[in-house]
């Protein structure tokens, strides 16, 4: 008797396309917040500390807290891991590259949280610091991390939508442009 597919199997099978769309919507919402911040600073000329994006207009404490940012890092990590099995071939390699970069990004956030919880900071710093902040000690680090996770994600999705014949034969989802045609 055939057993019903598990949630993971569904997410990487017939629900893969929809799951990827939802995941991408979350990722783009995060970028939209940063875009809104940039517009607030450079177009509306708001002071940097008051430019908290759209969400921050109603929930300023949330945007200023680690809760939202660490939560987003966790959501990204879980999403990249949950949806990995649906990718094959080149798409899988790029997707996993995004996953491992995000894994390290999460470790950095965990290091910061750990210093706050332990009450001791690395390198005698007066505030908690992450390892990459030693090399790139400014706000741009967050942007760099988001970019280097996003780029391989997009490349993975490109190869996933337009797979080679061999790759498409191994896919269990309906994400490829047309299952009956080879798209070069």
């Amino acid at each position: 008797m055939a057993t019903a597919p598990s949630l993971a199997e569904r997410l990487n099978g017939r629900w893969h396309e929809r799951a990827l769309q939802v995941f991408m919507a979350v990722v783009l919402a995060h970028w939209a917040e940063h875009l809104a911040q940039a517009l607030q600073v450079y177009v509306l000329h708001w002071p940097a500390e008051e430019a908290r994006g759209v969400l921050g207009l109603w929930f300023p404490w949330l945007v200023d807290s680690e809760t939202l940012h660490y939560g987003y890092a966790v959501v990204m990590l879980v999403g990249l891991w949950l949806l990995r099995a649906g990718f094959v071939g080149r798409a899988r390699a790029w997707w996993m590259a995004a996953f491992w970069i995000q894994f390290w990004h999460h470790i950095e956030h965990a290091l910061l949280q750990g210093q706050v919880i332990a009450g001791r900071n690395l390198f005698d710093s007066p505030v908690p610091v992450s390892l990459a902040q030693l090399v790139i000690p400014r706000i741009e680090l967050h942007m760099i991390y988001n970019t280097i996770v996003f780029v391989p994600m997009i490349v993975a999705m490109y190869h996933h939508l337009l797979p080679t014949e061999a790759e498409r034969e191994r896919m269990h989802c309906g994400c490829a442009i047309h299952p009956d045609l080879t798209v070069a």
Partner: protein
Amino acid sequence: MTVRRAVRVRWTTVLACAALACAALAWPRPALAHHGAPVRVVADRRVGPYVVSVWTAPDVGMGMVYVVYDAPAGVPAGVPFVVPTTVRVGVAPASGRLPESLHDARSEAVRHGARFVAHVPFDRAGVWRVRVATTGPSGGGELTAWVDVAPAGAMGPAGILFYASPFLAVAALWSRAAAARRRASGTLRARATLASS
């Protein structure tokens, strides 16, 4: 069956880890990774009865100056550390275009020594002088450091384009997929026409 169970256990572990992470987020903390980390501009300089380090996060707008006090080497164990009474931080552009502005630093809780933090205004990028004046029952003194103040977002208005780029990337992916879809359905239609004729 065994494979299915193993898979379930793995997912349970992932969910448990996620739940633990969420538990660690249960109370709000400052967004640590999204402000620049401070840079040490003075390391272990002797000022009166203290060994002082100064760290700054010199962003245009509101910058931060951290002053860290420790006892000098050779102080016997058990001798209590005397916390400075007042710490004031003066900042002025090196060009001399503005007079020095003085700001009180407030004490922060630390496990050993003492730490004070001051919020100081830097109206423009450039080199600024930072002067720290310390007074306390055991004595005090002053020290001066120079810091390079820079905008918090180094990209400037180009940041708008940068943050818009993911949307452009997704739009490009979308249009590429749509073109491929059109081509594929065109091929299907052609095949159907051929088959019917």
